[in-house]
């Protein structure tokens, strides 16, 4: 799991929310075309301070060169003044706001890849928006496919 947040956010809040993600069936490795079923829990924060939650499933590259990314799922849940949730195409979270879950079918590519100069990572991203105007992003990596980890060459190519 990787959690990232702006330094300013960290400095501005005494306690940061804690977001945990559960993958079903209790593993974070999937084959192309599998259903990704996931639930997330938001803790250590007053739910009343959260105005919206964005959930997305993305892939991104990480390495020494320019970055690339793709979004295969995105939605935004909004808490209105009565505390209910709207703009919710895959509703399953309203009762447990701001925690929730969703499921999507994964595509056939790109597959997760752990290379030396570039990696392809898949993750579930949960972004919380606070009434203060600040936000908090939590990323949870999972794997699509089973490409072996790249190894450096033992001998340089002549």
């Amino acid at each position: 799991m990787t959690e990232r947040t702006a330094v300013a956010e960290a400095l501005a809040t005494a306690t940061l929310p804690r977001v945990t993600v559960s993958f079903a069936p209790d593993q974070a490795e999937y084959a192309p075309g599998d259903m990704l079923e996931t639930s997330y829990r938001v803790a250590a924060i007053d739910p009343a301070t959260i105005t919206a939650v964005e959930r997305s499933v993305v892939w991104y590259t990480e390495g020494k060169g320019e970055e690339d990314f793709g979004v295969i799922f995105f939605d935004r849940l909004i808490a209105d003044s009565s505390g209910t949730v709207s703009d919710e195409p895959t509703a399953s979270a309203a009762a447990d706001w701001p925690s929730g879950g969703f499921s999507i079918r994964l595509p056939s590519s790109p597959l997760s890849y752990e290379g030396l100069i570039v990696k392809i990572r898949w993750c579930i991203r949960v972004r919380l928006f606070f009434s203060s105007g600040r936000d908090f992003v939590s990323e949870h990596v999972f794997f699509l496919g089973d490409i072996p980890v790249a190894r450096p060459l033992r001998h340089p190519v002549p």
Partner: protein
Amino acid sequence: MTDRRLWSNPFATRYTRPGVIAWQPTPDSPEVLLERLDRSGGRGLICGPHGSGKSTLLRHLMAAAAGRGWKTRVVAIRSRADFWPALRAIVAATGRGHWLGIDSWEKLGPAGRLLAPLAARRGGRIVLTAHRPQDGWPILLNLQPDAPTFRRLVSRLLSQVDGPGTMAAEFAPDQLDAIFWRHRGNLREAFFELYDHFERDTRSLIGEV
């Protein structure tokens, strides 16, 4: 094996590209630099050698300018072919409510000398980055990174990435200094070397090599 695959390399461009690295304490905060920009007629130049942090500083200035409610934009010049996008951006950035950053100005070559007078007359605020001083452009900041700054950046990068986080012990100060000087103060290239170190070390730690 899975845990190992989750290690993020803190020196990947995801963490080091312009605008991501946090502002480094200097005598001149972004706010001070914006004040200086206004005192110099809305035109300014950030200069410094390759990899010294010019683009990063430009993004921080853009964020500070946006915080003042100005309409901001950065144009990155990659070659002389970007003359027209630069011209359009300069023409569009008319009036005091606009802040325009043009990164790697010198890549425009002689064409930049044609655009400079136009840029100077548009009335908006314009900041260029270049390796050397440019005729007629007041210098906002001349960046000359030093080894302590590099060590501080490395420490910050290592601390922000989750995972075992044991690499800090692998980089002694004199090792970091040697890397810094090997790349003649080019922070970008120095980060790339550390990226390779990290990949080698993480793989060897788990017996993959």
